[in-house]
């Protein structure tokens, strides 16, 4: 980003990070910036960085809240590896976020907060604004507090209320810096504070003051312009992964003509699914906060037995607790959708950090032979489709299905072209009818699914349970051959799920030097890296798995077509193990287990190394 004198510099894409105390309104500021940016037609992706503590004391490093947005005039798939602009509302925010900055990045700080006390709280012994430690950056110290207060001088508000407006001042500065209009935010403020017009006024004044300050001050020599992207026409909304999972399951219920029964127990980062769904009781959605995760899945399974679609949402520790019930669901062959929003483990681990290390658990984490379909969304909005598909498979194959989302997707957000619901594939239920000769474990010859006989239907009375069942009748059976047969039938049924799934397509040439094979939330990073590499003329293709079980048919074809297969994952190599086992290919694992998404740069370097071999 070259500098000219108050000129407009065009850039292709930018990453901005707002950071401050939890009380500074950082998330709100970020969301406003996102909204405006979306409205003017940029592509974008965002990620909030919440502190682990609920409300840490002001000024501490562990109380810093952050919000990152990556936007551009071309497709954007990640919230950005590194940051072009950091807005740091206090020393702690600066300290915590320095590591994310690109060389020569812009840092806008609220100097008013660089008091001795705040510096000490942040663990600084010297003022970084003065000790030269920020040499490699463009530092803009702004008296944000002072200037905000001045702008609001005339208003009859308390100091505290005025100070709360300073985030809008900061936002105004950044709006000017990236040539964004104020109107969308002004409108939003007016709506939001409709009942307190003096607050609306204050916030608007602060916003404008920030913009004006940036425009008129000597401080900023130039500002930037990011042209609108070529975006598919339609109606868009911003959506997080957890919102999308919730929406997806609601739509699936409606499409299938089933009530959704959500049995859940709060846990980070899955709780918001329960929160979201419990709002929509007028959509045939029933929510039940259970006493624990065992009860949550138990109630969901009971509801499925009685004719609702049972759903449960959790994360690692909760998944662990559901293990026994998962097996009952496999044995009773009832539909059930299990959202596992992965976080860094094992055990309590780092509840506010992301990871992909539940894949092998989803695959093999049940005593006995217990196959379960697994689907993994690749982006926040893709969670919608993953949830929908999971429900479809659960119902049509009478099976529990695990959806492997993660914290990065759950909290991350991106604009989403709202789909036409008519285009979603239908979901058919295989309900038993009164007049049939119903046998609980008689199977559909195609799918191998048994029929769903709903309590309340005369003539279909039957008993199911966790003991091995006799083929067709479902009676308890200890017969050796029957057991083997049932074990194999249960496995084969899950293989047949493949028949209704769309195979992923390869991105790039069908054959060549290097295939990157991936799953889940690493998608954005990999797509970005591959695109950049291909722009550099490198021979790289990318195949992204959506269903981890069963694996798609065309996967083997592609694997065989490449000299190398690289598998990037945020774990110690889960998909790698599965691929090595299934295809006996010496896949190269690329693993980072830091509670963070993969970085585009790091991945690109690795790929370059492989290609250079």
């Amino acid at each position, binding site marked *: 980003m070259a500098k000219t004198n108050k000129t407009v510099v065009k850039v292709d894409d930018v990453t901005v990070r707002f950071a401050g105390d939890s009380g500074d309104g950082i998330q709100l500021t970020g969301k406003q910036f996102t909204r405006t940016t979306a409205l003017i037609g940029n592509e974008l992706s965002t990620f909030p960085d919440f502190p682990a503590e609920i409300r840490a004391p002001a000024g501490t490093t562990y109380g810093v809240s952050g919000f990152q947005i990556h936007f551009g005039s071309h497709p954007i798939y990640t919230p950005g590896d590194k940051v072009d602009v950091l807005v740091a509302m206090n020393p702690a925010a600066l300290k915590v976020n320095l590591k994310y900055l690109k060389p020569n990045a812009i840092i806008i700080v609220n100097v008013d907060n660089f008091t001795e006390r705040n510096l000490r709280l942040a663990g600084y012994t010297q003022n970084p604004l003065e000790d030269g430690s920020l040499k490699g950056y463009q530092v803009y110290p702004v008296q944000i507090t002072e200037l905000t207060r001045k702008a609001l001088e005339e208003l009859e508000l308390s100091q505290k209320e005025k100070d709360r407006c300073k985030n809008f001042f900061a936002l105004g500065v950044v709006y000017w810096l990236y040539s964004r209009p104020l109107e969308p935010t002004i409108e939003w403020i007016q709506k939001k504070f409709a009942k307190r017009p003096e607050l609306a006024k204050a916030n608007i004044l602060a916003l404008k003051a920030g913009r004006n300050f940036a425009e008129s001050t000597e401080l900023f020599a130039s500002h930037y312009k990011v042209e609108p992207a070529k975006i598919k026409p339609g109606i868009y*909304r911003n959506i997080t992964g957890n919102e999308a999972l919730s929406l997806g399951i609601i739509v699936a219920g409606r499409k299938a003509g089933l009530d959704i029964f959500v049995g859940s127990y709060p846990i980070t980062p899955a709780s918001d699914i329960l929160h979201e769904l419990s709002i929509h009781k007028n959509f045939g959605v029933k929510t039940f906060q259970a006493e624990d995760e065992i009860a949550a899945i138990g109630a969901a399974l009971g509801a499925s037995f009685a004719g609702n679609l049972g759903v449960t949402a959790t994360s690692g520790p909760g998944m662990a607790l559901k293990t026994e019930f998962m097996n009952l669901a496999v044995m009773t062959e009832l539909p059930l959708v299990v959202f596992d929003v992965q976080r860094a483990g094992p055990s309590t681990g780092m509840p506010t950090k992301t990871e992909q290390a539940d894949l092998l658990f989803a695959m093999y984490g049940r005593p006995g032979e217990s196959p379960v379909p697994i689907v993994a969304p690749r982006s926040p909005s893709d969670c919608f489709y993953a949830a929908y598909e999971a429900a479809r498979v659960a119902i049509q194959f009478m099976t529990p299905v695990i959806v492997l989302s993660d914290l990065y997707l759950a909290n991350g957000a991106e604009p989403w072209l709202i789909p036409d619901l008519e285009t979603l594939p239908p979901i058919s239920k295989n309900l038993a009818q009164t007049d049939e000769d119903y046998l609980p474990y008689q199977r559909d010859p195609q799918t191998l699914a048994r029929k769903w006989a709903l309590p309340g239907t005369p003539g279909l009375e039957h*008993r199911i349970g966790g003991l091995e069942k006799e083929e067709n009748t479902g009676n308890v059976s200890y017969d050796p051959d029957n057991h083997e047969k049932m074990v194999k039938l249960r496995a084969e049924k899950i293989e047949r799920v493949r028949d209704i799934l769309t195979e992923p397509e390869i991105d790039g040439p069908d054959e060549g030097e290097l295939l990157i094979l991936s799953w889940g939330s690493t998608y954005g990073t990999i797509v970005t890296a591959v695109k950049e590499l291909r722009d550099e003329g490198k021979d790289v293709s990318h195949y992204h798995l959506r269903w981890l079980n069963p694996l798609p048919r065309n996967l083997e074809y592609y694997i065989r077509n490449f000299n190398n297969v690289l598998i990037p994952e945020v774990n110690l190599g889960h998909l790698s193990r599965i691929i090595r086992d299934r295809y006996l290919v010496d896949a190269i694992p690329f693993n980072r287990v830091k509670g963070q998404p993969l970085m585009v740069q790091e991945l690109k370097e690795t790929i370059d190394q492989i290609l250079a071999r």
Partner: protein
Amino acid sequence: MATQPSNTIPVKIRKQDFSSDQEVRWCPGCGDYAILATLKRVLPDLGIPREKYVFVSGIGCSSRFPYYMNTYGIHSIHGRAPTIATGIRLANPELSVWIITGDGDGLSIGGNHLIHIMRRNVNVNIILFNNEIYGLTKGQYSPTSPKGQVTKSSPYGSIDNPFNPIKVALASGATFVARTVDRDTKHMAEVFRQAAQHKGVSFVEVYQNCVIFNDGAFREVTDPQEKWEHALYLEHGKPLVFGKEKKKGLKLTGFHLEVVELEDPEQTDGILVHDQFNPDTAYATLLAELTDKPDMPIPLGIFRSIETETYEEAFFRQIEEVKKMKGEGDLKQLMLTGDTWKVD
């Protein structure tokens, strides 16, 4: 939506209609047989069609029960029947849901779900087969086994204080709490009937003899000779009297119950009168605690029966309220919530 099992349709079902085609496989002489037979006898009178019954159990000898009932049923996993039952009731509140559990299934591994379903007042009927032993796993002590009991896992005697299931149920807020015994099928039938008719959660402890691993555990209240001296039959509005000639009564002094001898069984002045509708649980708790005292009679019958809103009533009421407030959900609208913008 009705949140009660409908019992309006007059159906003619007989006891034997409730027998499934599965051979009953409890040990010969097991108390479970009597409970099964009694329940089959009671159900036809409730006026609920057979297809509306769901029996849900955990794991244990007792938990095989659903296999023997020609209704809907789930033989689930150890201790978790209440969770499944809750899901069933909330999915379809027109079903009559019965939880069959044991002292191990319900009070050991499943204790938490049991107290939570009672707290919520989910409209199910819980029958806890208390044989004071783990039958299916061949004889270990359970949370109701008396201290000192020698079993496979307590070769020198159990050192655990037992639970008093009735007290636990009362403290959890159960709205119907009763006890009966396998050998008194008439009493059992009446208790089951009342439990079924109760709106809200019903908890029934059934003293059940395990002939193999704990034979005679309830001799005091089943032995034809002894039982009159030990069984205290609770009847609402009647004085608490017992004994072959009903010549013993319970008197309350402060918080203390003591046994007094009556000259004349008809003269029961000063004898406490049973009040199963007492809204406080302290009274029922006092009765429940008798069981733990060696010299006191063992109450059988209904300890408590009160009516309050059920979980399902509140659950579906709230759904209706939201629908009234927001209208039947419109998917298109929902897709458009939050900030939206149009790109041309």
